[in-house]
């Protein structure tokens, strides 16, 4: 198109055909846009609607299930939330005037195409969400899923992803305090790269994205706008991720962006200074859908309209069209609303940090978002119709019949180790298997020390940071999901993910407060996948209600599949908790006190469906997932928090993949201290060592506290069993009547696997 497609031009050429289908819109959606506008859209308007109404931005397939969040958030749960679903990130009150914001997001498809940059920009994006709440970003976590560990493509993807997350996060000065690395062939052509960020602020500094106050100025600041990721968002949502030829006759542009962590670091400091000086009325990050998203969301959350002069946007490429500028996903940009009298001060702070800042428009008393290009109007739309009134699909969902086949294929008949020699071998096989081996090859590439407030990080169950140097108040976080359990039973499996993240936070001594999630699923057009999704949302919402902690936000990623085969359903759950004094945190390794007893909290049942043992030893997935008992998880958490507060627990580690064997090996290796484990003579040792029953934590208790602690458990009705002792002078782990392992032998097995695969 050579003539500018202004609104006037659109009105005079009502019959011009626009490429709505290529931009991922459906016929009825295009008709609705015409109806809203009372004319055909301009190409800039079409670009805006198509990106904002894409799956990624509008949640059109998932939103019909959001009623589960509403129904299950009680007044009491709501009271803890300073901001919830719908904002850039959820915010919870953690006491003493501190508010903490946290969120997890996916960057799956870009990370397959360009592992380093895909993962790096994933971190960049989630960090800007946190900044946009008015908070200083304080830590990141990275839940990751890859194909088979020994598949050649995993050797391309994993090192790149890890280097990208480290490269970006390390350069921002954000400690990486946790995450996951899980291998499963279902992720082969579709790895999952999720990133979580936590930030903190004083409650009164909370900034919400809105543009109010007629005459206030709209400031764009950060990096220049280029041709990156144009069409990226709609491509993500339009069933392919191979690139797309949107725009006006340009050659195919990559849908991957390159990150500039230095610019983002400077942007963080610049925003913090702007907040300190109180010169920001509203703020919004530019993420997916770039300026389309930022301007329409700011305007629709305000009380008036907005006028933007698009030709003022600083560009990196020549000849960009209005539609391209609006949909560019160039990274490291933010958009703020400031009072006219503060513009000078705003620009001064930006200059100090060498951040490019431009006034691009202002808040008006009209109703519409009006965007001009050299004086001509190219966009004139009601902003809510772009930002919030996208389509809503009622996709069919149905439990697939194969689900019965899957559930009846129990692991009961799989051959099990029974002699001590077989058990010994199985323990070594398990601890060196890719999903259970030490993650150090990965986590060693992440800075965990920067900012000097990290008190727990890898390989602990949860990460924990101090947020207040005077009071020692801190927050903890963990992310979890066992996709195999979710596959066997999406409702229970998702509650197990919630239970595990909740338990991991409590294991460090923190009280869980709020939940975020990243729901990674296959195609929403597959009714079986949609059923998994619906069950997962319901399970998570109802589970949170039972635990009394709200879902404060999250993210959905659909179309995670290779060909027709969907990934294991992977609703990653992140839980945030608070601890009033981080000096009371519970470490993971043995040997912190002179004499420690081992107490196993919770009950062990024969639960091997979906277990790591069935997966590693037999390549088997079938049967039922472990049971979940959220009331029990809550009690367990209360006991752990009490144990931390009163100094009754000197180490703790929960039991999850790999069961008791894995947990006790890790506690010994992390603490570099031996122990003797005594199994229950009345129960099959194999089941005791490898069952994955939920609701269990192994704690080390100083001898002097043992009676007090076990009486507390008994009084509260929490089952416990004395399971051995730490032997400080020993350098071996004895599992009585089964095997004795020198710690060196365990270490070699546990630590050797990932380096052998990826070095």
């Amino acid at each position, binding site marked *: 198109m050579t003539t500018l497609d202004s609104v006037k031009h659109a009105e005079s050429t009502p019959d011009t055909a626009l490429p709505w289908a290529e931009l991922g819109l459906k016929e009825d959606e295009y008709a609705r846009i015409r109806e809203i506008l009372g004319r055909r859209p301009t190409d800039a308007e079409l670009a805006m609607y198509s990106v904002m109404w894409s799956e990624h931005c509008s949640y059109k397939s998932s939103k019909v299930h959001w009623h589960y969040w509403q129904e299950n958030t009680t007044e009491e749960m709501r009271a803890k939330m300073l901001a919830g679903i719908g904002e850039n990130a959820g915010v919870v009150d953690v006491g003493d005037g501190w508010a903490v914001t946290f969120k997890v997001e996916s960057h799956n498809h870009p990370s397959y*195409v*360009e592992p380093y*940059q895909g993962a790096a920009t994933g971190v960049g994006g989630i960090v800007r969400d946190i900044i946009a709440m008015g908070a200083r970003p304080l830590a990141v976590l990275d839940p990751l899923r890859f194909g088979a560990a020994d598949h050649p493509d995993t050797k391309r993807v994993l090192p790149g992803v890890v280097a990208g997350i480290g490269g970006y996060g390390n350069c921002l000065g954000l400690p990486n305090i946790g995450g996951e690395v899980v291998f499963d062939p279902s992720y082969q052509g579709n790895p999952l790269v999720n990133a979580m960020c936590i930030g903190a602020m004083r409650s009164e500094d909370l900034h919400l994205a809105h543009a109010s106050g007629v005459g206030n100025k709209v400031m764009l600041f950060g*990096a220049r706008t*280029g*041709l*990156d990721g144009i069409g990226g968002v709609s491509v993500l949502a339009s069933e392919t991720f191979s690139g797309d030829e949107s725009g006006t006759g340009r050659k195919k*542009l*990559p849908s*991957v*962006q*390159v*990150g*500039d962590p*230095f*610019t983002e670091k400077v942007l963080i400091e610049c925003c913090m200074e702007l907040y300190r000086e109180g010169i920001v009325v509203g703020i919004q990050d530019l993420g997916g859908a770039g300026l389309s998203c930022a301007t329409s969301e700011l305007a629709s959350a305000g009380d008036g309209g907005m006028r933007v002069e698009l030709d003022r946007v600083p560009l*990196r*490429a020549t000849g960009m069209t209005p539609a391209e500028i609006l949909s560019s996903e*160039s*990274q490291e940009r933010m958009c703020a609303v400031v009072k006219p009298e503060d513009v000078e001060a705003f620009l001064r702070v930006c200059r100090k940090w060498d951040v490019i800042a431009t006034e691009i428009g202002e808040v008006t008393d009209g109703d519409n978002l009006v965007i001009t290009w050299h004086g001509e109007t190219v966009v004139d739309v009601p902003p809510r119709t772009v930002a919030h009134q996208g389509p809503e699909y009622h996709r069919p969902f149905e439990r697939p019949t194969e689900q019965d086949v899957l559930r009846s294929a129990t692991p009961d008949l799989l051959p099990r180790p029974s002699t001590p020699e077989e058990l010994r071998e199985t323990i070594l096989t398990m601890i060196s298997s890719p999903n259970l081996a030490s993650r150090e090859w990965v986590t060693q590439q992440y800075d965990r020390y920067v900012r000097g407030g990290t008190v727990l990080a890898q390989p602990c169950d949860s990460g924990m940071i101090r947020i207040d140097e005077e009071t020692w108040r801190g927050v903890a976080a963990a992310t979890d999901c066992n996709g195999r359990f979710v596959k066997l039973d999406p409702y229970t499996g998702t509650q197990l993910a919630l239970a595990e993240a909740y338990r991991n936070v409590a294991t460090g001594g923190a009280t869980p407060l709020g939940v975020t999630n990243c729901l990674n699923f296959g195609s929403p057009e597959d009714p079986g996948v949609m059923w998994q999704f619906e069950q997962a949302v319901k399970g998570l919402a109802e589970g949170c209600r039972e635990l009394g902690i709200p879902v404060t936000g999250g993210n959905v990623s659909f179309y995670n599949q290779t060909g027709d085969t969907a990934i294991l359903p992977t609703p990653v759950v992140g839980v945030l908790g608070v601890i009033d004094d981080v000096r009371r945190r519970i470490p993971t390794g043995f040997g912190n006190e002179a004499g420690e007893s081992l107490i196993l909290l919770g009950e062990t049942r024969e639960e091997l469906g979906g277990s790591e043992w069935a997966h590693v030893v037999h390549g088997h997935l079938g049967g039922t997932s472990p049971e979940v008992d959220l009331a029990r998880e809550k009690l367990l958490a209360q006991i752990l928090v009490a144990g931390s507060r009163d100094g009754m627990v000197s180490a703790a580690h929960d039991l999850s993949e790999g069961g008791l064997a894995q947990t006790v090996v890790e506690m010994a290796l992390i603490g570099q201290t031996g122990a003797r484990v005594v199994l229950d003579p009345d129960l099959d040792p194999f089941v005791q060592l490898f069952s994955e029953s939920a609701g269990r934590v192994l704690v080390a208790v100083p001898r002097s506290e043992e009676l007090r602690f076990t009486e507390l458990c008994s009084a509260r009705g929490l089952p416990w069993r004395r399971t051995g002792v730490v032997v400080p002078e020993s350098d071996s782990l004895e599992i009585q009547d089964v095997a004795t392992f020198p710690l060196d032998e365990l270490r070699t097995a546990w630590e050797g696997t990932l380096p052998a695969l990826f070095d």
Partner: protein
Amino acid sequence: MAKVVVDVMPKPEILDPQGQAVARALPRLGFDGVSDVRQGKHFELEVDDSVDDDTLAKIAEGFLSNPVIEDFVVRRVAE
């Protein structure tokens, strides 16, 4: 034996933070007159005469660069 050079550069439309950092720093160091800088990688390979241009292109495209974000140029140079 032949010496082969492969230069890998960020595609023109892709952000090049490294080149930009250099470009921004030069005036501060007192060097004016440089209007743009792009930074990429330079590989020097010693290859057997048996390695043909096709193979070199495959190495450059499939391994030394990621065609999604980078372009490359292969040259044989006289020793």
